[in-house]
């Protein structure tokens, strides 16, 4: 962070209910919290959770929210089914070709390197966080993953920087994230809080029994569910529940593969040195983004040949031009999806050893529910409407009476979950 940033924020150190310390940063000049009866919206992302995991046995608290509110049975993530782009779609309401954020990992042509889209400047579209703030409302982010904290930067009025961050996974455990959420609600009480709980995703990625028993994953689901329950209990205990709307959803789901189900575009192109040297690969688990970096004169024929070779692999489901998927030039020249039970591993065959992956279409179905004590929330509804991650911003915006951004939303207001929402 630059020194200038310090000029625009102040820090608040709090003691969490579990005994830890929570440090929040707040934009200077932020309005103070208001009456308890005003609308509060909490967007909780249970990262990487599958819809079929929201069961009374595995996730009893989420299941109760699902039955008490509105459950979107056909909800889906959008391309590329990765964490950063879908969090961005939730907060902007526009597809990646407008936001500039198509995947977690891209090849940055200017820098000549593959990198995560984790910088505030990577996100080129206004989010709800600052659009609401511009209307005098307070917002907050409690994001468990370092790269999410990175890209959303200081857009929210109140921010929590994930801590403690576990090595390798780069995320804070859900108990710490929920500590921070409770502390932020108690101290600043923002009108909108955007939360990412990363445990189910991070444990899912590494669960070696993912194709069968899902032992570690099951434990993580129960743990995350406990934290969601803890937050709901807190809202109820502090009198906020009756004015609260919760949107609980995943950014993508999860699919597991065995070591035999690995696709390497690097290996596919190895026998064609002239092609391999002209292509950069940004691997996103279930999707590979391919960038032509060779001579412009050979681009079209070269890409056609790359497409043919990659599509012929038995583990490859399909190969697309990015625009077919609502992606912009940041996504490169070709996007390859794998089938269920497969994963990409690039730029080397050993680069992706983790069994749990997403980014491919089998990981599109997500849990998505609207609950809360606010009188607008409809009770006991199951909707088959095509809810998408991109619908979060228009829906939350409508709750606050916020109009569409310039150029309009690409998502829709999910009116099915509310009585009398226009």
């Amino acid at each position, binding site marked *: 962070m630059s020194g200038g940033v310090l000029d625009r924020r102040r820090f608040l150190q709090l003691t969490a209910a579990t005994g830890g310390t929570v440090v929040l940063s707040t934009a200077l000049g932020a309005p103070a919290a208001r009456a308890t009866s005003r609308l509060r919206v909490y967007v909780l992302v249970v990262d990487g959770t599958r819809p079929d995991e929201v069961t009374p046995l595995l996730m009893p608290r989420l299941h109760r929210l699902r039955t008490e509110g509105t459950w979107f049975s056909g909800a889906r993530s959008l391309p590329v089914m990765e964490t950063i782009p879908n969090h961005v779609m939730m907060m902007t309401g526009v597809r990646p070709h407008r936001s500039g954020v198509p995947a977690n990992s891209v090849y940055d042509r200017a820098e000549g390197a593959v990198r995560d889209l984790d910088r505030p400047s990577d996100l080129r579209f206004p989010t709800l966080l600052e659009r609401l703030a511009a209307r005098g409302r307070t917002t907050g982010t409690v994001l468990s993953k370092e790269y999410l904290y990175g890209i959303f930067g200081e857009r929210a009025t109140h921010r929590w920087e994930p801590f403690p961050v576990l090595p390798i996974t780069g995320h804070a455990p859900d108990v710490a994230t929920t500590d921070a959420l409770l502390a932020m609600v108690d101290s600043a009480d923002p009108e909108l809080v955007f939360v990412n709980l990363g445990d189910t995703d991070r444990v899912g990625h590494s669960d070696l029994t993912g194709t069968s028993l899902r032992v570690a994953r099951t434990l993580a689901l129960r743990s995350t569910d406990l934290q969601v329950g803890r937050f709901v209990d807190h809202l109820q205990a502090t009198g906020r529940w009756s004015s609260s709307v919760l949107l609980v959803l995943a950014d993508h789901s999860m699919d597991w593969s065995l070591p035999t189900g690995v696709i390497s575009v690097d290996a596919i192109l190895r026998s064609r040195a002239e092609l391999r040297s002209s292509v950069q690969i940004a691997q996103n688990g279930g999707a590979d983004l391919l960038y032509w970096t060779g001579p412009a004169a050979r681009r079209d024929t070269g890409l056609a040949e790359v497409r043919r070779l990659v599509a012929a692999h038995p583990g490859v489901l399909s190969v697309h031009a990015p625009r077919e998927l609502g992606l912009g030039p940041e996504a490169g020249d070709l996007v390859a999806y794998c089938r269920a039970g497969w994963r990409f591993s690039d730029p080397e065959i050993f680069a992706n050893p983790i069994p749990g992956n997403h980014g491919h279409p089998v990981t599109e179905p997500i849990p998505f529910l609207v609950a809360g004590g606010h009188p607008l929330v409809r009770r006991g509804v*199951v909707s088959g409407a095509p809810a998408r991650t991109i619908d979060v911003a228009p829906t939350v915006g409508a709750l606050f009476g916020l109009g569409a951004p310039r150029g309009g939303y690409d998502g829709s207001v999910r009116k099915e979950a509310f009585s009398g929402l226009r």
Partner: protein
Amino acid sequence: MIAPDVHLTRRRALQLATATGAGLAAVAATGPASASPKASSPVFRHGVASGDPLPGAVLLWTRVTPTPAATPGSGRGPAVDVGWEVATDPGFRRIVRRGTTSTGPARDHTVKVDAGGLSPATTYWYRFRCRGTASPVGRTRTAPAAEAPVARLRMAVVSCANLQAGWFTAYRHLAARGDLDLVVHLGDYLYEYAPGEYQARDVVVRPHEPAREIVGLADYRRRHAQYKTDPDLQALHAAAPWVVTWDDHESANDAWSGGAENHTEGAEGAWRARRAAAQQAYAEWMPVRYEPGGQLYRRLRFGRLATLSMLDLRTYRDQQPSSPVDPALSAPGRTMAGPEQLQFLLDGLAEPQVQWKLVGNPVMIAPVRFPNGLESRAVEGIAQLVDLPVPPVAGVPYNVDQWDGYPAERAAVLSHLRDRGITDAVFLTGDIHSGWACELPADPLTYPLTGDSVGVELVCTSVTSDNLDDILGTPPRTATLAVETAVKVNNTHVKYLDFDSHGFSVLELTEAGAQMDWFVLTDRTDPRAAAVWSTSVRVPAGTARVERAAGRLS
């Protein structure tokens, strides 16, 4: 109106109540359908029908007999004009569409009218006029507009109605319900056999006409005409629009693109000519948007709630393997749907703006492996049920006339569902004369551990055609119980199986879930048989799981 006359033998009722857990209170009324046609007039002897509803149109059907000589299949009788009317009330005070069409011996005096200019999701009444006579009145309903939300869609699901094997009381009970948006018929609407070749165990309840195996155009026309004189069939046709496809018996048993098990090339003419005759009669006599030489497979849409893709799994398929251990079984290029229809199916399943993707699937797609430990008579009985030349052995697919005989193509369908994360795919199936509810394993090897399912298959039983207890010659719900248990134990994705009963199913779709009710007849050979609620399963939206429902649809 005639008072319900429930004829239920005490023994059969007790068997049904025991087997299904249903009390006798569940016995349905057997009164005539509320929209049942009046007694046949000399001109309109074969009833009226409607089918393939669209948001603004529905197909109307009848057959006229303008002179006594103009009998079905005769090729005789004059060309005549037939008027038609569509109204928004049963008394025809508000007629919204009318017209005149002509027919004659070239199309066996059948009439098909595509009545357009109608409003979506609207109930209409229709009738025909010919030579000063009005037809019975039929009731129909248009489909909802393509983008409309739909709170509920309820349909009958039926298959395998062998006139020789019993009475069509299943159709009568359905016609009496009054709550059906449509009737889905999954094939074997009629049978090609001669009297004595295939009936109710050893009893020919009603002999087929003509009294021979049908092979030529006149034969197929006459057989269609015979079926359409059945008052229960007429009542159900008049009560709701039908969406139909054929299976094999509309032409000949175990038909494939180049022949059929029940076709002797040469002695019974050329297969292509026989099939063309069968298909022409079908096009003439069924309320379907199909004409000879066209394609029967098609997709109907019911707002944002559902699509219904009706498949033709006989016209394009490769020959069935000779047995479940035939090495040809696993050849990668073998097809049942044909490449174009397969792509049509895959495209429909991937439609993102529609919740339920129903597939009118004439033969079962769920893999079924033959179980261990059955008595030899039961093994032989199953072989007979599925037309196997030799008794199956444990571990092999039990019926290669189903998708089990075309595993590469089935894998393409199921992996399409899995790879693309497609939800709410429901295969509605007939053919096998038994009731099933199955999940479709994403991966058969890990399914027992993960339970991961990519869709469901709901199979209605036969209206009358023989099933396992009939073949074994045992009382219902006795010897077959062990077979059903063995099949379910060896195929854990099979959640419900009834190898014995005859009857019908009713499927309801809402945004929250799908539910199918199975009803079974007390006695298919009794024209006054009751229908007893047997079981109900529910598929919660988005789950691809089969659960036992709390109760029948209300």
